[in-house]
């Protein structure tokens, strides 16, 4: 008997993406550039995060036509974003055949209390997290992959670093906790007890955790791998740079060989300028996408 949508099949899909780079694209042409550069998947969306920031208003799941265009342009997996808690956007993306859905704080949340019950779906989900409480709740809801929230569309790596360090530090702490300490930790973090038990047993998260939200250079990507990321999402960093093709290739290579500093230096030398960045302190609390999600 063949079983689809099992936990192993959904989490396993993300395992296959490890050590790779997933790139935001807004059309078929960009998707082909990403595939040729060695991206392991593309994220189809209407605007990259920095443009979402600039445009303001409500950011929704992208036009199904863009998803279809990207799906038919490349053979690598295609992901797409839906709004937090938007059951119908998620079901529509699933019916379009996307390979992974990102329930994403980059879009305007549709529900300010509840996330999607993701284990109801056959398609797997990725979600953002800043700490072990968010990570464990998303896993409890059925997320098959995690990523740092970072601060999308800023080209500033500081928040992704903060979130990766925080989650990994908390995983290490949980790994050595006694069982009675674990229940109080679950209470304090608002985290499901059984997910924390699984983290303790494994000594790591039960799903892969990628870096996202602010990666703008090959050095940024390599830094996140150094800090323990399983792979990297690049949003605005590729197609808002001076030379997207070169940037895409360089970020892929730097992610694979993240400790080969001579190579990364060579890659970085001829790139031209990266996307223009934003200082986090210039963003008000309302402008910070990472505050979305609960």
């Amino acid at each position: 008997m063949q079983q689809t949508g099992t936990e192993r099949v959904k989490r396993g899909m993300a395992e296959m993406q490890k050590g790779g780079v997933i790139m935001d694209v807004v059309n078929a042409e960009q998707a082909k550039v990403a595939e040729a550069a060695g991206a392991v998947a593309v994220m189809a969306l209407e605007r990259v995060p920095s443009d979402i920031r600039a445009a303001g208003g409500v950011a929704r799941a992208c036009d199904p036509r863009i998803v279809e265009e990207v799906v038919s342009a490349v053979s690598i997996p295609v992901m797409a974003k839906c709004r937090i808690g938007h059951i119908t956007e998620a079901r529509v993306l699933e019916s379009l055949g996307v390979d992974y859905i990102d329930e994403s704080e980059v879009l305007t949340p549709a529900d300010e209390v509840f996330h999607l019950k993701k284990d109801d779906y056959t398609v797997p989900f990725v979600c953002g997290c800043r700490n072990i409480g968010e990570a464990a709740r998303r896993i409890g809801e059925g997320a098959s992959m995690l990523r740092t929230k970072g601060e999308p569309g800023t080209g500033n790596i500081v928040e992704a670093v903060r979130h990766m360090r925080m989650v990994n530090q908390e995983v290490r702490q949980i790994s050595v906790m006694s069982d009675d300490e674990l229940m109080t930790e679950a209470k304090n973090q608002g985290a499901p007890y059984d997910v924390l038990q699984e983290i303790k047993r494994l000594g790591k998260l039960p799903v892969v955790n990628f870096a996202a939200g602010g990666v703008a250079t090959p050095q940024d990507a390599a830094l996140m791998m150094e800090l323990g990321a399983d792979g990297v999402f690049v949003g605005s960093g590729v197609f808002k740079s001076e030379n997207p093709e070169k940037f895409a290739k360089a970020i892929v290579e730097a992610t694979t060989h993240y400790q080969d500093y001579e190579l990364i230096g060579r890659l970085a030398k001829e790139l031209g300028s990266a996307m223009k960045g934003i200082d986090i302190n210039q963003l008000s609390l309302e402008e910070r996408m990472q505050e979305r999600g609960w």
Partner: protein
Amino acid sequence: MVMRIGILALQGAVREHLKLVEACGHEALPIKRVDELEQIDGLILPGGESTAMRRLMDRYGFTEALRASDLPMFGTCAGLILLAENVVGLEEGHLGKLNITVERNSFGRQIDSFEAELDVEGIDEKATAIFIRAPHIVSADTGAEVLSWVDDKIVAVRSDRHLGISFHPELTDSTVFHQFFIDMVQKYAEAGFSVGT
């Protein structure tokens, strides 16, 4: 004799293969550079994205080195695609080690990915097989022995020193496929063809 098994570590599920090789009682090494191929007796090409892996293989000289290499190789999913002589839709196969034609993503998209219990020639127990956007083997030609099927699709083949399967034993706790491959490596090494030191 303890065999040294390399896992091509450019992209994909490397850690899982390392663990299963070690669980078989052999030495596992992640391989990131071509010169590291000299230290091993057999090589595993893991699951991942075959187009991404191929690009990195070209960039760092692996394509050429592996085409010329006599190392026993075991490919899972993307690794199977890399080993095939022909790939549907591509002008030329990647490494051309197994005399087969493969088709990529031939069970459908991720939503169609599945797990199943399989009978495999040469393995006594039922094998749990996890198929993720998996390829299948359209035809197995001279020298390639078919080991398993899903419905009318071939999903596992071997030759004298190459093993290729459509699915992911590395996502399970079972070591049967790794042991099967290591037995092939051992047999090859005992015959005196080892390129290891």
